[in-house]
Every structure is written in structure tokens, then in C-alpha cells.
């Protein structure tokens, strides 16, 4: 009389070993990094005191500074984010079309578009801003273009994926009527990706509002310039006002976007 005694295991030996290998590598990397990173312990012990000092300098906030400089800079920041998001579309839509396998069925095109999308995403918006500041000089243009170039990768990738998920039935129906390539794009694909398109663009706009608030630190316009100036002059009460303004705008932008997206979906 044999009872059932086989041992149940969730993972195979190979799965287990490869998982443990990942853990091991992580632990090793962590230990190695902690040992070799240059951290001055005195600074860490000092941190709470310094933090307290900073916040005591921030309070009370210099609200009188808001109408003088912060308000206009905040509007400029919003404009940079919005204009940047719109300009992105000029580049991102063609790249998304090239990246979608059901529209352009060519490996070469896909590689080209993927190259542009990945390099756009890999370079941080602050680095893009540095590049454009050295091209166009300090100012709003650099900020707008930095936002635009950083967003290409994000919008292009997500939009390309949305296009690939389109229901091909209506596309085939349009093809059967002899519609031109452009008409198929406009009347077949576009209505189907419309909600995804607006949702992606709004999502990116939300991120861009956050990002455009810091571009001024490298001279690309917006609230960051005010922040940088006040910080260089150690006017922490003005820094606090600028930070509060950024906080409020970011929260408002998120609320707006979440509500619109809820309606779209």
C-alpha cells in the first residue's frame, strides 16, 4: 500500500538556480557598492540638524515674492510643458507609425524608429536642456525643445503599441473598398487609437509639467530659473514659495489628467 509521497515543487531546479543566481549577484553588487561608494559618515550624522536648519530658513515663506516673479515663471513653465508636448507629436507620430508592425512591415524601418525612440528616452530631459541651451542660448526655446525631444521616445513607443493593438477587421473592410493608404490611416486606425492617443499625450503632459519645473536649473526657462536664483542667494523663504507653487501645479495637473483620462477610457 503506497501512500502518495511525491514531493511537490513549484519551480524546476534550473528555475531555482537561476533565481538564486540573480539574488546572489544583487547582494554582491550591493555589498560592493556600499563598500566602495564615497560617503562621509559625519555628513550623514549631521543631516537632521542641517535639514532642520533648512526648514527653519524656509519658514515663514516670502509670499510677497509670488506676484513679483513666481507667477509669471509658473505660467511660462506650463507653456513650456504644453508646447513641448505638442511639438513632440510632429516627430513621435511618424516614428510610432514606423514602429507599428501592422502599418509598416519592414525590419529596417523598425530598427531606425527604435533607434530614435531609445536614444530620445535614454538622454534625460536635463541633459537635452543642456544641449539646447548651448545651441539656442538660455531661454524658453531650449526648454520647449528639451521637453519635446525627451517625450518623443515615450509617446512614440506607447502610441506604436496602441496602434499594434488595433482591431484589424475594420482595416480589412476599408482595404476591400479600395481606400487609399492615407484614408485607411485616417478612417481605420485613427478612430480606434483616438482614446489611447489622448490618454498617452495627457499622461506625458502631466510628466512634462514636473520636468519643466526643473529645466530652469540649467537655464532653460520657467520656474526653475527663479528657484535657482533664490537658492544661489540663499533666500530659502523664496525657495519655499517656488516649491509650494510647483507642488500645487503638479497636484492640479495630476487631478485634471486623471479626471479626463477616466472619461476617455
Amino acid at each position: 500500500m503506497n501512500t502518495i509521497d511525491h514531493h511537490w515543487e513549484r519551480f524546476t531546479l534550473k528555475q531555482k538556480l537561476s533565481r538564486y543566481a540573480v539574488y546572489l549577484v544583487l547582494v554582491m553588487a550591493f555589498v560592493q557598492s556600499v563598500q566602495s561608494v564615497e560617503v562621509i559618515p559625519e555628513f550623514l550624522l549631521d543631516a537632521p540638524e542641517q535639514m532642520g536648519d533648512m526648514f527653519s530658513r524656509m519658514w515663514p515663506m516670502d509670499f510677497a515674492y509670488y506676484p513679483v516673479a513666481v507667477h509669471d515663471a509658473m505660467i511660462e513653465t506650463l507653456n513650456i510643458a504644453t508646447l513641448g508636448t505638442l511639438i513632440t507629436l510632429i516627430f513621435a507620430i511618424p516614428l510610432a507609425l514606423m514602429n507599428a508592425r501592422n502599418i509598416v512591415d519592414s525590419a529596417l524601418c523598425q530598427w531606425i524608429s527604435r533607434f530614435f525612440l531609445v536614444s530620445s528616452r535614454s538622454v534625460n530631459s536635463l541633459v537635452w536642456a543642456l544641449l539646447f541651451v548651448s545651441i539656442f542660448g538660455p531661454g524658453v526655446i531650449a526648454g520647449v525643445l528639451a521637453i519635446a525631444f525627451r517625450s518623443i521616445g515615450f509617446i512614440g513607443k506607447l502610441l506604436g503599441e496602441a496602434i499594434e493593438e488595433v482591431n484589424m477587421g475594420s482595416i480589412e473592410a476599408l482595404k476591400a473598398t479600395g481606400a487609399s493608404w492615407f484614408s485607411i490611416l485616417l478612417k481605420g486606425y485613427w478612430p480606434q487609437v483616438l482614446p489611447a492617443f489622448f490618454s498617452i499625450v495627457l499622461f506625458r503632459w502631466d510628466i512634462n509639467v514636473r520636468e519643466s519645473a526643473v529645466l530652469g536649473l540649467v537655464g532653460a526657462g520657467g520656474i526653475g530659473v527663479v528657484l535657482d536664483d533664490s537658492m544661489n542667494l540663499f533666500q530659502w523663504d523664496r525657495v519655499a514659495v517656488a516649491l509650494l507653487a510647483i507642488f500645487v501645479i503638479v497636484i492640479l495637473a495630476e487631478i485634471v489628467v486623471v479626471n479626463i483620462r477616466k472619461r476617455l477610457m
Partner: protein
Amino acid sequence: MAGINKDRENPFKHNWFVSSIWLLVVCYVLYTFNAMDLSWGRINEGFGHAGNLLGRMIPPNFSRWSLLLSGLVESLEIAVISSICGIFISLFLGLFAARNMMPSWISSPVRGVIALCRTFHPVIIAILFVKSVGFGALAGILTLIVASIGFIAKLFAEAIEEISLKQVEAIRATGAGFTSIILFSVMPQVFARFIGFSTYQLDSNLRNSTMVGIVGAGGLGGTLFSAFQRFDYDFVAAILIIIIALIMFGEFLSNIVRRIFR
């Protein structure tokens, strides 16, 4: 016969709502171009500079590779330490923020903390940390820990909220304690998604670790920023190439990890 077509609704009806949005967008663009003094003259002038800049960037100058390497190693260290600490903290915060696991007097304040971590851009957090712990890698590490918490603790909490409670109940019926319930009924359901979020966060910390240096928080960003300020554009090009290579390598690695844990 001619009447048939008129009865039928046009399938390609004009969507006035969308058209009016586009019209608004066009008006907005025209308005802001005026309000922000963006003129074609200036943009045109910029293109000349762009050619100039590209000319000076090529060929990239790798002769100061030791400086480049030390910045790169520091960026990597910042990314590794902050990701592991950030993920570890997020595991707990995510659990505490999940509304189906915790009573609301625990989950609401934890959610507030997570939202606060998410609101500010890492660079702003980096500035505050540079002020409080001084220049160097420590400020970068703390910044990216905060950024990681803001992003993945939220995703962890959402993942936990979507689990099926049947398995939780089954484990609870065996008389298991709280830790066992978490380990044997919650974790198996969400672990694969956690790995996905974590590898994504590792990628994004890698990207950000090359940027926080711009405000003095250590890593390759500081090297990049000073190269920009000294107009060493050929060195800038070398750094940018290294950053892009690093990030592509990071994506490659996280794809492997994701495949192992699928």
C-alpha cells in the same frame, strides 16, 4: 433608389468635438509663440549653432577615460544601492498602503507619504538633500530612494489591491499568522509583477543617477555638467555615448531578469 443612401447614417461622421479641440490647440500654439518671443529668426540662428556644436562634438574625446570611468562607477553604485534600499522600503510601504490588507487609519497616511515622494522631481529632492547631507554620492542615493518609493510603492500597493482574496482566506483557514498569510498567499500572486516594477525602477534609477550629479549629488552627471560648462563638447559627446550604452546595457540585463522570473 437615390433615397437609400440618404437614410443611412454616414459611418465617417465628422467629429466636431475633436475638431474643436484641434482648433483650440492651433490657437494656443500661435498665442504662446507670440507670448514667449519664439521667432523663426532665432530658431534659424540656432540651427547654425547646432551644426557648429555637432562639429565640435565629433569625434568624441575618450582621452580622459579615467575621469569618465570614476563617474560611471559612482553612478552605478548610486543606482544599485538606491534601487535595493528603495525596493526594500517600498515592499513594506506598499503592503501598508494596500487598502484590502490594512485598516484605513494605516493605509491613508502611508498613501499620503507615497504621494508626497512622487510629487517632486528627483532633481528638486536632490537639491534639498545636497543642502542637508552635502555634495556627493550620499545625496544622490537618498534622492533616488525617495524617487523609487514614490513610484514603486504605489504600484506595489495597486498590485496587492488587485489580488484574489480566496487564496488569502484559504491560508487563513489553516490558522496561519499574519506573516505566513503575506508570504504564502499574497506574495505568490504579486511576485512576478513586483519583479517587473523593480527592474523598471532599476532602469529608471540608472537613468536618473546620471542626472542628479547636475546639482551636485554625485555620479556621471557632475562630470557631464562641468564638461558642458568648460565647453569641452567632444568630452560631452563621449559621456553621452557612455550614458546611452549604460542604459541600453541596463535594459538588456533587466530583460534577462524578467525572463528568469516569468
